[in-house]
């Protein structure tokens, strides 16, 4: 077990350096000088541009720039954006919004997705199963953006149940609708994944032994089936958590939530190198840590994984 964890952590470090270097390199080789866009369609004075170029090492090569970044990171600094604002301050104001949105969506996904998956598996080929299967296909085939606008129209404008924009009413009111829209996609995937995986196990031989032993159906499903079917779902949920926190740009935009996604989107638009790199770094670390944690968790759930 210890050896497995050590190997997993080493991989994590290698991946971290490779990915951050690539992002760094890509971001700064995008065509277009970010200092040209500082003042919209006006130009910033040449002298000031030179000064900023020097400050942000834009006049240096990619390797030197990357080393400066690593040095900052080792000292726990995320650096400054091209306007001179501390990126950590900007992120600190936005994380609560993104985390509230992501975790609310994730919770909805887990509760509804697992619930529907179990129902579909237990009632296989009956009405409930068919309804879940059809519903999840329908959801998956509607584009994200359309679903968001539709939800705004129905729940926000027509029925007036929930606010459609901003976070002025706090958690959970302001977050329910956007989180629900995001959760719809995840729960569709989870329900289908769990159903498939449970049915596969249902056909396994040990299930018949359990039944022959006279174990109650509820215990078979709740303990033996669900635990064995959990591996792919837990993996999915963990990966999805990373996605939810980094990939809610569209939803944050449509529902007007000034979270990290929006900051990242704006940074990409303006070629704000330092901000893109800083946000990516935080997301990558989060993503790598969760996926390592999941692998370790999976190896606990299913000891066969350790022997790979």
């Amino acid at each position, binding site marked *: 077990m210890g050896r497995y964890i050590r190997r997993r952590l080493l991989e994590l470090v290698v991946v971290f350096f490779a990915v951050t270097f690539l992002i760094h390199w890509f971001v700064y080789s995008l065509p277009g000088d970010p200092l040209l866009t500082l003042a919209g369609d006006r130009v910033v004075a040449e002298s000031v541009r030179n000064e900023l170029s020097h400050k942000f090492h834009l006049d240096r090569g990619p390797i030197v720039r990357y080393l400066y970044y690593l040095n900052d990171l080792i000292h726990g600094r995320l650096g400054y954006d091209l306007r001179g604002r501390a990126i950590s301050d900007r992120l600190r104001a936005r994380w609560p919004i993104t985390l509230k949105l992501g975790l609310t969506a994730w919770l909805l996904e887990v509760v509804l997705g697992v619930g529907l998956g179990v129902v579909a598996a237990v009632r296989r080929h009956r009405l409930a199963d068919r309804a879940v299967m059809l519903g999840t296909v329908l959801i998956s085939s509607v584009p994200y953006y359309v679903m968001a606008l539709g939800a705004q129209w129905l729940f926000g404008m027509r029925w007036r149940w929930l606010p459609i*924009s901003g976070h002025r009413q706090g958690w959970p009111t302001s977050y329910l609708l956007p989180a629900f829209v995001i959760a719809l996609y995840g729960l569709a995937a989870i329900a289908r994944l769990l159903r498939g995986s449970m049915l596969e196990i249902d056909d396994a031989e040990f299930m018949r032994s359990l039944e022959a032993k006279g174990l109650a159906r509820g215990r078979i499903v709740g303990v033996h089936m669900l635990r064995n079917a959990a591996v792919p779902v837990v993996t999915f949920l963990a990966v999805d958590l990373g996605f939810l926190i980094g990939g809610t740009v569209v939803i944050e935009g449509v529902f007007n939530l000034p979270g990290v996604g929006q900051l990242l989107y704006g940074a990409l638009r303006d*070629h704000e190198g330092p901000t893109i790199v800083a946000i990516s770094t935080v997301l990558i670390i989060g993503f790598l840590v969760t996926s390592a944690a999941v692998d370790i968790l999976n190896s606990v759930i299913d000891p066969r994984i350790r022997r790979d």
Partner: protein
Amino acid sequence: MRRSRFSAAIAVAVMTVVGAGGVAAGARPAPAAAAPGGQISVAMLQPGLLSPYRQTVMFDQVMLMYTSLVVIDDQNRVTMGQAQSVTSTDAQNWTITLKPGWTFHNGEPVTASSYVDGWNAEALKTNKMENNGFLMHIDGYAALNPAEGEPTVTQMSGLKVVDDLTFTVKLTAPDGQFPLQLTQAQTAFYPMSKAGLADPAAQDTMPIGNGPFMMTKPYKDTEDLELVAYDKYQGKQPTSGKITFKLYADPNTAYADALADNVDIAGVPPAKMSVAKSDFGDRVYFNAAPGIAGLGVSLWDQRFENPKLRKAISMSIDRAAVNKAIFAGALTPATSFTPAAEIGTPENACGESCVFNPEQAKALLAEAGGWTGPLEIHYPGGLGIDEIYQAYANQIRQNLGVDAVARPSTDWASFASAREGAQFSGLYFSRWGALYPSMQNTLHAFYTKEGGCPNCVAYYTDEITAALQAADAEVDQAKAIELYSKIQTDILARDLPWIPLFYETYNFVTSTKIKSMTAFAGVPIYEAVVLAG
């Protein structure tokens, strides 16, 4: 489109005090009796820094927190704001006298040093202020901004404090338009309090101004921005006691919220231009702005050398049809090289080159030797303007028989860099929005190297440089207007280095709470909106 009716009325000599408030009587609606308690909300996209020396997208908010030396009113008239007078006899040496008794929001008096010290700090290269370049015509600016190395001085030689309320400005060359450069959208020329000089970073989130509204706590860029009336304000009192700028990520959401009366004033996103009238009725404002849009020509490419070719392209575009199809008729086709909202802009300076005439266009093209291969129109992608450039390409293709294609870049930065490096050839997105309504601003932006408009055209001839210098040197505004107009009719109409298309508008919708509002240079005068009921 509002035409300037004040062409000859702004001689510098008359720029003295106009009433205690600094604004001509009757220029703005009188505030309602119950007004000070009133509140309005305004949609805000993309928050940025608030220091007047660093802001580039926060004009509305910063303009409410400061009063500029000179103020353009809603009728495009030049009036005095914080200044009592701005005078000069040679257009190069200016004396600015301030109104007494004004204070910053923290109680500090506004003095001549508030300007001189503030501008010096802004101009110093090592302070890295985004608006530094606005001060480049003040004598001594260059010493604070050497191309290489650190500056050895920290004060511009052209600025002198005479007494508490008087200072002088020496410019690098005569400039009769200087008073107009001191107006409200030129935030680089605002004063700075002593507290602000001591802590410049604090000004980025909570500036200490001398204007009608103030902040009570530093701004966080995930929240709404609240401004409350400053009770010791010496100028004209605002019609509302509080203005909240509500943060939106998507202009379409803001527009929908205005329709639902959740926000009082919002901009009109490009996609909503055609439905705004039916959605809001008479609560839509298409405000004439001092902006002009057209097509740049890559003059670095020899194929565009012949003015006849450029004229042929210009005459092949049916501006009225594009206006109707894309802009719901909200814009005005351009007939000159400067926006009509700039004081004194002549009508039809462009002449027949700006009039749709496909037959003559084809004839001119033939005279110029025709065109082979595709004619590319480059524009920045991701701004939602694809439809517009497709329309121009269609017009040229249909009416001139040239294979015109619209080519978006990936984003603004890559367009700006490609343009700066002359990396493409053909026609390209080109516009300029002036921050003060003088023809000088647009002409300088376009036709001088240091004009600061990267998307204009590289048309810098000795002829136009000399003509601009002569017009700039004129203290008499009527004569200056005549000279700026002559540059358009004599030089630009002859060579057509740039193809004018539309005078821009800044477009707004309001909730039912707003009865009416006026504008300065296209931007609502928020402090003077008239509330309904």
